[in-house]
Structures are given as structure tokens and as C-alpha cells.
């Protein structure tokens, strides 16, 4: 089997899976879902590590390290901020929040 076709098959099937798994999302979850998907593509960090780890060129090394930093920001920041959003939905009623009574006028 032609290797290009294998890759194309994986790609096309992933497109359908990607649409199918989120097709029933309610509008309340649009933002967390976007943010979570955003974090998932931070896995480009994996690619950045592989290319940086195989280079001998100093300029390429610097560029690779920049790519690693950027990808790590995307991945870690993405998952953490998504979790913060979702915490808001699941949190049980904690003891009353400190609401400075009556405004500050």
C-alpha cells in the first residue's frame, strides 16, 4: 500500500472523527471546548523537541529552542486556563464568597 495513501486515510478519518465527537456541544461549552482544542494543538511541542534534538546548526538550535518555548506556553497554558474555566461549572457551593457588602460609594 502506498504510504502517502495511508497518511491521507488517517487524515480523512480524523476529519470525520473531529467533527463527530463535538457535534452535540451546547453553546455554553463553546469557549472551553475551543480553549481545550487550542491546548491539544500545543502538542506541536513534541515536533519542536524532535527537530531541535537533531540539529547541529547553532542558528537552527536557537530557532528550535524558541519553538519549544512557544509550544510549551501553548500546551501548558491552554490546559490550565481551560481547567480554570471548567472549574467554574463544576464547583459546589463553597462558603459564601467575600462580597464587600453594598458597593464602595
Amino acid at each position: 500500500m502506498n504510504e502517502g495513501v495511508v497518511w491521507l486515510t488517517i487524515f480523512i478519518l480524523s476529519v470525520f472523527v473531529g467533527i463527530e465527537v463535538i457535534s452535540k456541544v451546547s453553546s455554553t461549552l463553546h469557549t472551553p471546548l475551543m480553549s481545550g482544542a487550542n491546548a491539544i494543538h500545543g502538542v506541536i511541542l513534541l515536533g519542536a523537541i524532535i527537530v531541535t534534538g537533531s540539529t547541529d546548526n547553532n542558528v537552527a538550535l536557537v530557532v528550535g529552542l524558541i519553538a519549544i518555548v512557544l509550544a510549551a506556553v501553548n500546551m501548558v497554558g491552554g490546559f490550565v486556563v481551560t481547567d480554570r474555566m471548567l472549574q467554574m461549572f463544576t464547583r459546589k457551593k463553597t462558603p459564601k464568597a467575600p462580597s464587600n457588602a453594598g458597593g464602595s460609594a
Partner: protein
Amino acid sequence: MSIPTWAQLLYLVGAVAFILALKGLSGPKTARAGNLIGAAAAVLACTIPFFYIDEMKHVPLILVAIAVGSAGGFVGARRVQMTQMPQMVALFNGVGGGAAALVALLELHEITADGGSDVETFVLVATAFTILVGSVSFAGSIITFAKLQELMTSRPVVFPGLPVVFGGSLIAAVALSIVLVRDPSMGVGVVLALVGLAVGILLVLPVGGADVPIVISLLNAFTGLTVAGGGYVLDNTLLLVAGTLVGASGTFLTLLMAGAMGRSVANILFGALKGGSTLGAGEASDRPVKSAGPEDVAIMLNYAERVIIVPGYGLAVAQAQHTLRELVDVLSAKGVEVDYAIHPVAGRMPGHMNVLLAEAQVPYEQLIEMDDINDEFKDADVVLVVGANDVVNPAARNTPSAPIYGMPILNADQAKQCVFLKRSMRPGFAGIENELLFEPNTTLLFGDAKDTLGKVLTATKAL
């Protein structure tokens, strides 16, 4: 370098975990678990190459870079105010796209260093695609960040000849990509990246502030596709599947969001270029409006039977959610029926307002979505609009030239009384005048939302 079978199998496990993560994220009960599954899979996946690449170089430097990026992302994500979360997501998306473009440039460097003769055409196509779209996503996201952070105007930025310049950059991008595929060289790759940055900037500049979330979602899908392209270039199935999943679901999500606003994506991106959305904000601002004091509003609310609250981004900016919840508690105790009407795009993004109110411990049952409450406005005695504007603007129904025309709105204009809490007569995020402010049954209460709500609360308690 070939990838050992065990590592390939682990990549497959990671791909399945990402599918489960997206599946989880689309249901309210499973969302948090889904996100954690995705995070665990991503972290573990990134350790795999360290175990199968024997002569991995620069390991200490790589680990330092990972630590620096992770710390930056973590601190940023923890510190950001919930109101500023949309621009944070835009920023994270942008750096991801930038990283993908850099990875593709490095791979191109490898290819050209090897002479580049025995490389498959498909690989070069994917490399060009990743460099170009990654740059577009990076520059576009930075502009959306600047718009949301109000580092620049949130209104559409259009200059004469923008369509020509934009079209020219697109043609240049395609031409450079073809050159790169036929005769790979670093010079062409770098120029392609620069043109990609220009395309990204020009793509987002003409988009109005209220539509920016849709653009973030679209750029998110773009970044996903670049990661997929990077996966193909690097022979890495996990990157291919993860990127494709995000690209496909992100595109679909963009269409869903645009649908919730009654807009088409093409209209959002290119509407301003056709003119028509450059409505003057100045013309009507000096028309007479009816304003009242906090005590008057307290009386109106106290003697109403049914009150609907329309919360908007201004509420969150003023950090007035807690005061508002207290006011609602007092009113409910006095037998007034109070609900919150949540527009699908209230706040800065779909679902953003739910997050902001949940943060103030407003019970989930009091938050009613637009479609479920829109028929009840005509029975409401008072509608209290706090820091919202565009989502109740009748121009969306009546003025075909308005940029928000066609967006479904809350029927606040059908209520017996409508009270606006506003800082000033400044128009909303979409930058257009709201006719509802000038209606005879509309009352305005000027001031900082937290401040005025506090006064209304005190006055209501005293009644």
C-alpha cells in the same frame, strides 16, 4: 530515523486520548475530565522522543526551554482575569501557530542541507503549508489579542486598497509556495513566512470587535491544520491526528458560533471590506434620553412581579457579579421572580458569561438561554440590562446596514420597562448606536456598575 513500534503504539494511545478529550469537553459533566485526559496525554507524549532517539542532542537546553515555556504558560493561565480570558486563548493559539511554522522552517533547513533531491513532493507541499498557515495564525492571533486587550481599536480597520493588498499577498503566498515545492531553499521559506505574517494581519484588521471570537476559533482551526502538516513532515502520526482533530472540530465549532450569531464566516471576515459597517457612532449621541437615580430603579424593581436581568461584559469588567447576585437574592426574598437571560455570545465569547456568573456563584438554574426566555420578555415588568448593549440592540433586527444585522437578540424592547446600567453613552463593542436607549419606556442609570448596583441594593433593602 525510524520510530520504533512501541513508540508508534504509544502515539496511537495519545491520539485516542485526544479523541476522548474532545468528546469529554463537549459535555458539561465530562468536560473537566476530558481536559485532564488531554493534558495527561500531551505531557506523556512529549516525553516519548527522549526514550527512542538515541543520539538526542542539546537535551539540557531543550529541558530548560520546556521549563521556561511551561512556567510562562502556567503563570499566565493562572493569573489572567476571567474577563480577559478570550485574549489569553488567542495568545496561546498564536504562539502554537508560530511554533508550528518554526518547526516547518527547521525541517526545511534539514531538507535543503541534505540537497533536497530525494524528498517527496507531498512533504514539500506540507512544509510550505505549515510555514504559511502557521505564520498567518501567529500574526492574526496577535492582532486579535491587541483588539481584545484594547491595545488598538476594536472597530474594523479598513484602508483604501486593502482588498488589493490582501489579494496581492495571497497570490504572492501561493506563488512562493509553488517555488518552494519545485526548488526548496531557506530564503524562499523565510520570505513565505513573512508574507504569511502579512496575510494574517490583513485578514484580521477589518474584523469588528464583536466578531473577534469567531476569528479566534477560525485561527485555532488553522493552527490545528498546521500541526497536522507538521506531523506529516516529521512522519509523526500523533501530530497528524491531533492537528487534524483540532482543525476539523475547530472549523465545525467556528460554523456553530457564527450560526449562533446569525452570521456567515465569509461575512464576518470580509463584510467590512464591502463597506456598510462603517456606521457613525457620533450622530445620535446628543439625542435626549431618560435617566434616573438608584432609588428610582430600586422602587421599580421592588414593585415588579417579574424581572429579567441581561448581564453583559461591562458587568464583569466592573466586577459587579457578586453585588448583582446579592440584589437578586434580596429581590427574590421579597417575592419578585428574577432570572438572568444569557445571550449565546454575551461577554466576549460564546459561553463566556456563564463562566463569569458561575464565578460569582449564581445558581446554574437562574441562567436561562436566549431561546428559552425570549418569549417571556413581553410579560416582564422590568428588564435590567447591566453592562450589555449589542445583544439587545434592535438594529440587529431592523437595520440591514448594521454590522450586527441578523444576529438574534434578546427581546428586551418588548418588556414594560427597560433599565440600562451604563458607564456612559459610549456604544457597545460592535461600535454602533443602540436605538433602545432612546425609547420612551427605557430608563438609564449612569455610573460604574458595581457602584450603582450597590446603591440600588441599599435602597432596595430599605424599602
